[in-house]
């Protein structure tokens, strides 16, 4: 890395720090101005673009180190330097994106402070201490990343353990940063509206409020009957003033579900972007070695993405449940009203992801000799996946957002027979079966070209087949029972059972399979680099779909607040106090996608350029040495 680039990164960090540090003061001076317009595109669009781009880059730089450190660890333990090199390559990609993330964060803060001073004043008033903490964590992450990346070659051998420790530390900082910033946005969606203990910290504002409401009181009489157990609402019902502790605000309803959802989402997203990068390099590779390397890298990236993708529907379900718990109306709006269509589009995208991921695995089996025996299962598997995706896409509650003529064109709010599949119990069943089918694809891939030598191989296969069969039957039966029980039982008991069945199958079968194939004979190794170009396009498709999905769900999460900056507490009185149409939102997401991939492409190109320059100078030096030798 050049000094110039280092200074650029440090400069961005400093800008971000200064903006964060002055945020409360700046906003305080401007409390009179609720909103300031952003020229040309408007405040909301400006904040939207900056926030989404920052989030996408942030997600990438948080997700990649997670699996990079695991791959590095595998390389260290197996003494296979290929893994180490790949992990290093991942971190190089991350380094390029890091400064852009910081820069976009700075831009976002600037836009928010400029366009929404009152909102920022309110948020910084509540979350001030966490913002300082955020800056400290940011410094920690920045310098750990530098040490981790630049120390890679120097910390080999006996220092490898320390290097891995740096990697873990980097992830700790990154995760903590995300948790902190998630508290701000999750508070906006689900502010702590319930009651809390009247602690010392809020006693003063409590007394002031009582005295203001009833002038006949004195500070002493206002506190009569108030004990250490006294419960007070966390927001003043009139002014919306937050009276809780910082922890009350941080630990709101959706904070932890958003944290975990994003944590796993980052891994999946990071994996998919790495796979897309590898696909690009594969397509432009000139040598067989390069093709083989990027084929392997693409496979690994896709595998990581798949590992993250599988639990995501479950985590999304948890987040949705917490939203319902926080506010029933918000929950209804989410999937049963205003955003119904969005979730149908989401199903289309997730369907594309699963079909794409399965296709890639099947295509990958083409480069393994001996994998042909599994080809006969593909038509059945694709049929199952397509049917399940169709069920997942079945609309149900469109009557709330459709006109009479549209309903009449559809033949009613719900199809007389297929409408049944629009219910969550059918959709959950479909999702679980898709996940199990995808897992089966992976299992076939893993087994391709191998023959188990374990004496109990046949029994093992029968056991695995039986587990799959019984699990599928159980999931379907639970799904059917789900139609007949009250919602609370379905949500709280049956759906978790379905999820547990799917997870248990994956865990048990993986263990059995590992033991079965431990000393397996190999009929053919993987011919890395022998993948079709089409499969590489699938990797690109997965990355773009993932990115679009993140943008779409970002719109859903923010849109659920409707005309509120902080739901139920601070109203949005700007000209943008409405939820944009899905088509408008997706157009905006499309613009952001183009900007994101253009930026990512530019950063990767910069990396390639640097690499080429380095290679050219090395070649020149080698040529010079050879020439000198010849002389």
């Amino acid at each position, binding site marked *: 890395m050049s000094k110039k680039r280092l200074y650029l990164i440090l400069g961005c960090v400093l800008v971000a720090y200064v903006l964060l540090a002055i945020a409360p003061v700046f906003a305080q001076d401007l409390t009179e101005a609720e909103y300031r317009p952003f020229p040309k595109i408007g405040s909301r669009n400006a904040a939207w673009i900056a926030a989404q781009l920052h989030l996408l880059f942030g997600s990438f730089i948080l997700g990649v180190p997670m699996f990079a450190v695991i791959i590095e660890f595998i390389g260290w333990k197996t003494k296979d330097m290929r893994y180490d090199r790949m992990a290093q390559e991942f971190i190089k990609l991350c380094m390029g994106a890091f400064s852009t993330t910081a820069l976009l964060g700075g831009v976002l803060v600037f836009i928010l402070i400029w366009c929404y001073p009152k909102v920022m004043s309110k948020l910084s008033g509540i979350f001030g201490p966490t913002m300082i903490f955020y800056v400290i964590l940011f410094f920690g992450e920045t310098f750990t990343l530098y040490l981790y990346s630049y120390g890679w070659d120097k910390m080999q051998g006996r220092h490898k353990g320390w290097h891995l420790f740096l990697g873990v530390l980097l992830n700790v900082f990154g995760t903590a940063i995300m948790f902190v910033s998630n508290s701000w946005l999750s508070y906006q969606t689900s502010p702590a509206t319930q009651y809390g203990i009247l602690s010392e910290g809020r006693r003063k504002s409590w007394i002031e409020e009582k005295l203001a409401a009833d002038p006949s009181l004195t500070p002493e009489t206002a506190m009569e009957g108030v004990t250490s157990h006294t419960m007070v609402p966390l927001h003043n019902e009139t002014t919306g003033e937050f009276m809780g502790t910082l922890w009350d605000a941080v630990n709101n309803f959706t904070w932890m579900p958003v944290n975990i959802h994003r944590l796993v989402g980052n891994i999946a997203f990071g994996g998919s972007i790495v796979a897309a990068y590898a696909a690009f390099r594969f397509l432009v590779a000139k040598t067989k070695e390069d093709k083989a390397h990027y084929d392997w890298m693409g496979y690994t990236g896709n595998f990581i993405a798949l590992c993250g993708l599988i639990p995501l529907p479950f985590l999304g379900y948890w987040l949705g449940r917490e939203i319902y718990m926080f506010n029933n109306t918000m929950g209804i709006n989410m999937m049963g009203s205003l955003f119904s269509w969005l979730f149908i589009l989401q199903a289309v995208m997730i369907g594309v992801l699963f079909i794409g991921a399965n296709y890639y695995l099947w295509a990958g089996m083409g480069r393994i000799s001996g994998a042909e025996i599994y080809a006969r299962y593909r038509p059945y598997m694709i049929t199952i996946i397509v049917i399940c995706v169709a069920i997942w896409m079945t609309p149900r509650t469109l009557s*709330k957002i459709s006109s009479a003529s549209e309903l009449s064109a559809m033949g009613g709010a719900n199809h007389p027979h297929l409408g049944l599949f629009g219910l969550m119990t059918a959709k959950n069943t479909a999702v679980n079966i898709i996940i199990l089918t995808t897992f089966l694809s992976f299992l076939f891939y893993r087994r391709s070209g191998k023959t188990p030598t374990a004496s109990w191989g046949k029994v093992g296969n029968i056991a695995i087949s039986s587990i799959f069969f019984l699990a599928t039957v159980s999931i379907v039966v639970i799904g059917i029972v789900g139609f007949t029980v009250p919602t609370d039982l379905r949500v709280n008991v049956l759906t978790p059972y379905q999820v547990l069945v799917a997870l248990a199958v994956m865990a048990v079968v993986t263990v059995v399979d590992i033991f079965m194939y431990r000393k397996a004979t190999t009929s053919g190794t993987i011919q890395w680099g022998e993948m079709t170009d089409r499969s590489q396009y699938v990797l690109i498709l997965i990355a773009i779909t993932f990115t679009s999905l993140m943008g779409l769900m970002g719109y859903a999460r923010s849109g659920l607040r409707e005309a509120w900056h902080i739901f139920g507490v601070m109203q949005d009185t700007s000209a943008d106090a409405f939820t944009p149409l899905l088509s408008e939102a997706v157009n905006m997401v499309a613009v952001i996608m183009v900007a994101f991939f253009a930026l990512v492409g530019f950063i990767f190109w910069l990396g390639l350029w640097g690499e080429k320059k380095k290679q050219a100078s090395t070649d020149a030096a080698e040529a010079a040495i050879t020439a000198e030798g010849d002389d």
Partner: protein
Amino acid sequence: MSRNTLIKIASLILMVVSFIAYIAGASAFPIASENLLPWSVWFLISVIINIVLWSNVMKLLTFSLAVIWFYAFVAGLVPESSTAVNLTSLDWSDPDAVAEQGALVFNGKGQCSACHTVDTSAPKGRCPDLTDIGLNAASRVPGMDVRTYLIESLYEPANYLVTGYGKIMPEVWKAPIALSKLEIQAVIAYLESLGGEIDPTDFEEPIDRADTAVAAAALPPLLTGDPELGKKVFVTAACNACHVVQGVESPAAGETSADFEVVTAPDLSEIAAFNDMRYLEESVLLPSVQIVSGYGAVTVRANGITYQGTLVSQDTEQIVVRTKTADGVEEEHTILLSDLDEEPIEELSNLQAKGYFTLTLTPTDASASVTGEIVSETEETVTLKINGEDKTFSKIDVKSQLTVVTFDGDEIVGEHISGTIDDDEIVLNVDGSEVVIDTFDVEEVTFTRASGKKLLVTSPMPENFPLLLSVSDMTNLLSFLSTLTGATAEATPAEVEDASAE
């Protein structure tokens, strides 16, 4: 530059331009003032040309752009309406335009369409269908015109509930929906336009926004109870006999942990997480005001059989009742509402509050009885829906049936003409002939003014529950309940030890 290169560059430019134009919603590509093809088609054409002509990198870019466009295109196909409404004034010179604005609020910011339908063919929503509400509202509450009813319904939705629907509508003028007066006026105009006439006159809000806000500020709920003591009250008052709270000893849960279906009352482990203090207070002090779906107690009689148990579910045609035998065997019975037996009614007062939903009576000026669904009632009248029409009957001018049981065991039933048990004789009209009965022989007399089908759902909680507790116990109990947010409810080490000891 070769022709091939020119075509490639032109195609690339067309792709970028058509993508931008599509996203920006530009009108179709104009040629000689005629719209030739929409931008989406131009985009697709350019994508195909690019994929055919260009090699790796540009092909990849084309593919990426096509995928991004595809999702935007799919979203563009979705029929939807905007929630953007910015009402600063209403132009009453054009009432239809006001109603249109109201429809926007109805479907957007007001979130009314999340629960209400305006289509009789649509499946039953969470709240009543509002087709022709501009006409029907006049017959909802006797003496209340359309406008008054609609105003009441929007500002104080819990005042009059349509039979079969729960108290779930929020007060839309309060946060988070927080409609302004102008927005509510527009919604009312829209609702009036549904089968009725739009009334452009102004009205006074039945609430005082400023006063309500001040009152809320002056009287923030203050609970001084001790949650730990409240936890003990939860056990000593036997709340845990039916309710489960994680971390609290529960005989009900202990008995039935293997079978989730037999929990007799809602799990309260996260009750404060999604309910406010007012709801908790109301649930403890007036348990039958709002009953959690699936936990109401009912006693119904159908085809001569009495079912006593829990109302599992209910729709417009049937109910499902779960009963439990003395042996603890549970059974679910699906009962058609039409199969419920008619029960005699002695007093024609508070019929709906008593759970009656149909009524059979004989007006004094009629020879035959009439039967209909109860729509509404006042002290003097009751309105029935008979063959789709609402008809109002006097509660006083109703022929009474009298059942006289003599000491000999005879039961004589007839239309009451004169006399009571305190008189010397009672005169009845039995099948057209007058029957005079000497009260000296009469053991029991029962007046029946009408009969009706009844479905009364009550809370299984004892009605006198509040009286069983002292004020301090009640405060402690409420404090304890308010801590049950689930997210923060963690067992203390001592509780864990207790649990493991058990």
